[in-house]
């Protein structure tokens, strides 16, 4: 518990309105509220402060945003009335203790689309970040497994970028073996991979996936 937050905002209690919550959060973190989001509460944060702000939101007793509900990437190319950086990443947090929600938005220039990963803070961020990388092309530095999630491994480009021709189809010649993730999962249960079948493959036996696990 951070005594700073709790002492400064003793009035934080369940079910605050978004405006009251916005005032408290802005006073605490010194961020700017996104005027475009009239429905909800979105705070604009610089990329450098992401980890610091999110750690405080999660761990301080005054906030306790213990759930990362969603994580989305945005491409603002040809977005009406937008003249800022091209890309954005939005994190949506919820406090199951106070029933509060807050969004953190980070804007990214086209030539530097990297944000620090949140996988160290929220385990669920793993696949969410992989999806945003896959579809929008934002890279998450420090991600443990920065691979595509939805599209196949031979896919070139990022299909939800506004300059990707949405009907451009890309064929896959060989399916994507997910055995590396399976092995990591088995390892987390205490299994060790003894043999991946390399000997058979080297000997010309083309039956794959015949390795053994103990």
């Amino acid at each position, binding site marked *: 518990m951070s005594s700073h937050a709790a002492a400064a905002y003793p009035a934080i209690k369940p079910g605050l309105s978004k405006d009251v919550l916005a005032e408290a959060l802005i006073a605490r973190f010194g961020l700017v509220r996104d005027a475009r989001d009239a429905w909800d509460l979105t705070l604009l944060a610089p990329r450098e402060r992401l980890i610091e702000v999110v750690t405080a939101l999660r761990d301080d007793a005054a906030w306790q945003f213990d759930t990362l509900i969603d994580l989305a990437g945005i491409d603002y190319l040809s977005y009406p009335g937008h003249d800022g950086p091209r890309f954005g990443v939005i994190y949506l947090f919820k406090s199951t203790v106070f029933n509060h929600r807050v969004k953190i938005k980070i804007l990214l220039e086209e030539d530097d689309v990297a944000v620090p990963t949140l996988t160290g803070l929220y385990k669920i961020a793993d696949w969410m970040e992989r999806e945003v990388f896959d579809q929008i092309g934002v890279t998450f530095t420090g991600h443990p497994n920065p691979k595509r999630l*939805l*599209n*196949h491994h031979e896919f070139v480009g990022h*299909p939800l970028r506004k300059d*990707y021709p*949405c*009907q*451009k*189809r*890309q*064929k*896959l*010649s*060989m*399916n*994507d073996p997910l055995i590396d993730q399976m092995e990591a999962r088995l390892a987390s249960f205490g299994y060790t991979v003894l043999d991946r079948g390399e000997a058979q493959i080297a000997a010309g036996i083309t039956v794959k996936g015949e390795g053994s696990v103990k």
Partner: protein
Amino acid sequence: MTFKPLPPSVTSADLNLGDAFVTTRVDAVVNWGRRNSLWPFPFGTACCGIEFMGVVSSMYDVSRFGAELVRFSPRQADLLIIAGTITYKMAPVLQRIYDQMCEPKWVLSVGACATSGGFYDCYCTVPGMDEIVPVDMYVAGCPPRPEAFLEAIVSLQKKIDRESMAEQKMVGA
């Protein structure tokens, strides 16, 4: 017992065999067997797969047409039923399953997605199964009614009836 050929003067009428055998063509017998005992492999990836379950179960009962023995191994099936949306990520899997099926084999493309991609006019959906595997029958609908499904089975049986072992060509040969 040794086999002695009958003298040429003896005809079948002399043997008095009655209706103990019939004469026919090999194609007719083979096709009769094939069309009335299709073994489907259901590749159900979307709501058409649910429709297939209705077709197989007692209400519509595809066993009336001899195609009720659903197999989940491509080695034991001769009718690949593609019921649902296929993405490019899934396509190599489907292709491999088709390759694993033994000849003769037929493919049924069920519903709008398998036939044309349906309303998924986008970067990730295969716009029609015939890009991946050769298709024998298409079933329209989103999803199709079981009646349409059954009509496709019957149409496929008629198609099988027209096939000839002499003219049969191996796919991919």
